[in-house]
Every structure is written in structure tokens, then in C-alpha cells.
């Protein structure tokens, strides 16, 4: 019994499954368009786009897992879900603070929050790798860093898949954090708008009274959807990934479709709370 070793996760796509997924996606959008073509439909569209961004963004984050903690593979030494949740929730909080300054400022706040969190994480990880564990950064998947042109071969220890956090992985981590934070914030803002529109009539209360309730509901739904999307992307990666230069990165279309379907279905249920 092994919880670390990847068993599933074959290459390629199943056309039938993709078609079924797209039908589910269209069905979800159609139901909400039928019930409320205005705010709720735009909200669901935003939720789906947010899910897409999260699913795509997770693939950039250099995840090392348990082998990285022992200096046997490159990346940050924890699981995909934890890293994605950390970056996304940091972004979500950053964006939620700025929600009252309009969509653009709030989205920028979310993206910067997520990116900043990943930048700090990657920096501290590298400091620990280099100065505490005494291991240099060397990628196992490519011979030369695509950005700086540094060669890795001479620094790579035998019997490992590389170690440390190369520059390209650092850049990937920051891009992943930005996309994750952007997606999480977009889901939150769209749901917040839906609830702020529908809750006053539903509860016969003034918009100011239900503000806290709308924030609470949108927040918990955004966290739930973020985790669902992050885990689906994590299943697509199956374990470890080095960043955008890793061959596993090419698998991202599957996760993008999967996250779109999953967030559409979750989004429909979240919007039904005020429509049914």
C-alpha cells in the first residue's frame, strides 16, 4: 500500500469523456441562463473562468513532495494541494480586502497576493536548500535553464532526479501563484455580486444588512471550489512537477477541461442557494 507512489495518471485524453464533460458544462450554463440570464449567468461564467485559471495555474507551481524534502527531486517540499491552497487563499484574502475598490483593483490585489506568497515561499525554500541543507539547484528534466542558460549536469547528484529550486521553477511558482490568486479572487467576486443582488429581495432586508452574509457565503463557496479545482489539477500532475519546463506540464488541457466542468457544477449549486 503506497499513498505516495503514483499508480494512475496515464497520458492522452478520452474523447468520449471530454464530450460528456462539455455537455455537462453547457447544461450547467443553460440551466442558470434559463433561470436568470443576467447577474447569475455572468456570475457562473466568472466562476468557470476562475476555475480554469486555477487549474492552469497549479501546473506552474514547482511541487517536490516528500522526495524534495530529502533533496532527491527539485521543487518545494510539500504536496500540490497544500501549495495551491496556500497561494490561492493568500490571493483570495488579498483580493477580498480590495473588493470595494472595483473588479480590476480587486483582481490585481488577488493576483499580487498569490504571486507574493509564492515568491516568498520559493525564496525561503531556496535559502533553506542552499544554506541549511547544502544542496545546489539542479533540474532533472532539462539540461539547461531556459531563462538563465545555466547548465545543471555538473551539479546534479547521482541517483537523484535533480534537487533544489532552479530559477525557471521559481518563475513558474510566481506565475502559478498569480494565476491561482486571480482565479480564486474572480470566483469570490462573482459569487459576492450574485449574493449581494439576490439576498436583499430573498430575505426582505436592506443590502447593508445582508452584506456580512453575502461575504460569508461567497467566501466559504470560493474556498470549497478552490480546493476542488486544486485537487483535480493535482490529480492531473500525479505527484511532482518541476514547473513550466517539465514534460508533465503538457498535460494541462485535461485539467483545464476538468476544472471547467467541476467549477461549473459546483457554481450551479452555489448559485441555486439564492435561486431555488
Amino acid at each position, binding site marked *: 500500500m503506497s499513498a505516495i507512489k503514483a499508480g494512475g495518471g496515464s497520458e492522452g485524453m478520452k474523447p468520449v469523456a471530454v464530450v460528456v464533460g462539455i455537455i455537462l458544462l453547457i447544461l450547467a450554463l443553460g440551466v442558470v441562463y434559463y433561470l436568470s440570464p443576467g447577474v447569475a449567468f455572468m456570475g457562473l461564467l466568472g466562476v468557470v473562468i476562475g476555475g480554469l485559471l486555477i487549474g492552469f495555474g497549479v501546473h506552474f507551481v514547482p511541487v517536490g513532495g516528500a522526495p524534495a524534502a530529502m533533496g532527491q527531486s527539485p521543487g518545494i517540499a510539500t504536496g500540490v494541494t497544500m501549495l495551491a491552497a496556500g497561494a490561492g487563499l493568500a490571493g483570495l484574502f488579498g483580493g477580498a480586502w480590495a473588493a470595494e475598490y472595483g473588479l480590476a483593483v480587486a483582481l490585481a490585489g488577488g493576483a499580487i497576493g498569490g504571486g507574493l506568497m509564492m515568491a516568498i515561499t520559493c525564496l525561503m525554500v531556496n535559502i533553506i536548500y542552499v544554506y541549511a541543507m547544502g544542496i545546489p539547484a539542479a533540474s532533472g528534466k532539462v539540461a539547461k535553464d531556459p531563462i538563465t542558460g545555466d547548465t545543471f549536469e555538473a551539479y546534479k547528484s547521482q541517483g537523484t532526479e535533480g534537487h533544489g529550486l532552479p530559477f525557471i521553477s521559481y518563475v513558474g511558482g510566481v506565475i502559478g501563484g498569480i494565476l491561482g490568486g486571480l482565479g480564486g479572487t474572480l470566483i469570490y467576486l462573482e459569487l459576492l455580486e450574485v449574493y449581494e443582488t439576490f439576498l436583499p429581495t430573498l430575505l426582505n432586508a436592506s443590502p447593508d444588512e445582508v452584506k456580512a452574509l453575502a461575504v460569508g457565503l461567497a467566501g466559504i*463557496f470560493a474556498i*470549497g471550489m478552490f480546493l476542488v479545482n486544486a*485537487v*483535480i489539477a493535482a490529480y492531473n500532475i500525479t505527484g511532482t512537477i518541476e514547473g513550466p519546463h517539465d514534460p508533465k506540464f503538457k498535460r494541462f488541457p485535461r485539467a483545464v477541461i*476538468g476544472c471547467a466542468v*467541476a467549477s461549473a457544477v459546483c457554481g450551479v449549486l452555489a448559485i*441555486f442557494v439564492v435561486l*431555488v
Partner: protein
Amino acid sequence: MSHNKVLGIGLIGAIICMYLTYLNTLLGVQYFSFFGGIAAVFALWWGTDTIKHLCSYGLGTGVPSAGMIALGSGVIAMILATKVNTFGPLVIPVLCVVIAAILGAIIGYVANNIVNMNIPVMVVSIAELCIVGAVTVLGLTAMATGTFVFTDLIAGTATFFGIPVTNYAASYLGGGAIAVVFMLGAIAVQHAFNACLGPNESQDRTLMLAAECGFISMFCVSIMSVAFLSLSAVLVSFLVSLIGWVYTYKKYFVLSKRDAFMWLDAKPIREKEEA
């Protein structure tokens, strides 16, 4: 014990306990809130076995991811179920299970077929985990507030110049207390198998740790419920969770000693006596 037996006991036990919390509304008291916590313990106990079942195929992402997707999808299904009031409040626990099963099956299909994991038990396991997440949050919610009806979860009361007024910000959902329950459930459902996995894993020990995690979550929720329930009801919840936790912890300790190769009772370091 076979997985189906664990599933049956967990699901039926959780639903019966959810209905027992409704005695609160029928009798006009709050003492029966703790049954919600017991429902969550049943669900977590079952969820741990499901995670063990799923993770034996090797997900490659670690055990915590399964707990996160369980609660992440479960909380969405649970809030929707509490809101649907066309059939009266008594269908909410069953409706919660049904909505969670549908949502979980869709997410399981996405993970298994679109993302191409190709794990035979994936769809069923994610559906089960989604139900576990939904029932756990519903149970702990009922324990914290004494009810599982949406209109009661969103309405809190605040005293304004001595007059009680409805204040949505002081409610369970408006105040964000559900986020704490969410995390308590997510940690409790994944911890037991994550801690016990390995070649020496035995089912009774893992499931005992799951029950222990459930009771310690109940313990935290009973403290949270001070904000929503009367002090005597809180005291009942507090004592039930304390007794449950002490019992399961001691049992787990005994089982750990049984499974261990060797046991050395370490003594405190003694001061060297001055001659």
C-alpha cells in the same frame, strides 16, 4: 470489517443522529445538539475507510488532497441542502446525502475520465467522500447551532440598546463560523489514515484514530457553540465530546501498543542526587 459494512454503519448512524438533533425543535430545547457531533464522528469514521480504499491505488498526491476535495465539495452540497425548504426541514439530512452523491459522482467522473486517472473505485470513492464531507459539516453545524435549517443558520440576534434585533453578521454563516468547521472536518477526515498508513496499518487502529479525531473536532465545536446555544446545552456537548475523546484516545493508545514491535516506557530524567 469489509468496506461496505463500514459504509452502512457510518451512513445510517450519521443520518439517525442527524434526525435526533431535530428533537431540539420538537421539544423546544437545545440539549440534543451533541447528536450532530456524533453524526460527524460516524461520517468521519466511514470517510477514513473510504480514503484508505481510494489511496491504496496510489494517487500520487498524498492523502490530504482526498480530505480537501471531500470537504470542499461537501460544504457546497450541504449549504444548498439546508436552503431547499420546499419539502420541509425533515428531508434536509437525506437531501444533503443525495445532492452530495450527485456532485461527488460528477467530480469523480471528471477526475477519473477527463483527467484520466483510471482508478476503478474513483467515482464511487469521491461520491462517498463528498457525502462524508457534507454530513460532517451538517453534523458539526447542527452541533454548533442546534439546527440545520438555512433560515436559522443565517439569522443571529444582537442586542441593540437592550432590544434584540436580527443581525445577519452575528449568525453562523454570516459570521464565517462555518470556515472553522470546514477545516476541523477536513483535517479530521484525512489525518487518521495519513498517520497510520504503512505496512503495519491495521483497520481497527486507523478507525479508532478516526473516531478520536472526530471527538476532538466535536470538542472544538462545543466551545464554538457558546456563541449560539445556552450554557447548559454547551455543557452537555462539552461533556459528551470530552468523554468520547478520552475513551477513544485511551483505546487508540492500547491498540498502538498492541501493534508496536516494542514499547519502552520512558521515565522523566532524574536529578543526580548530591553526595
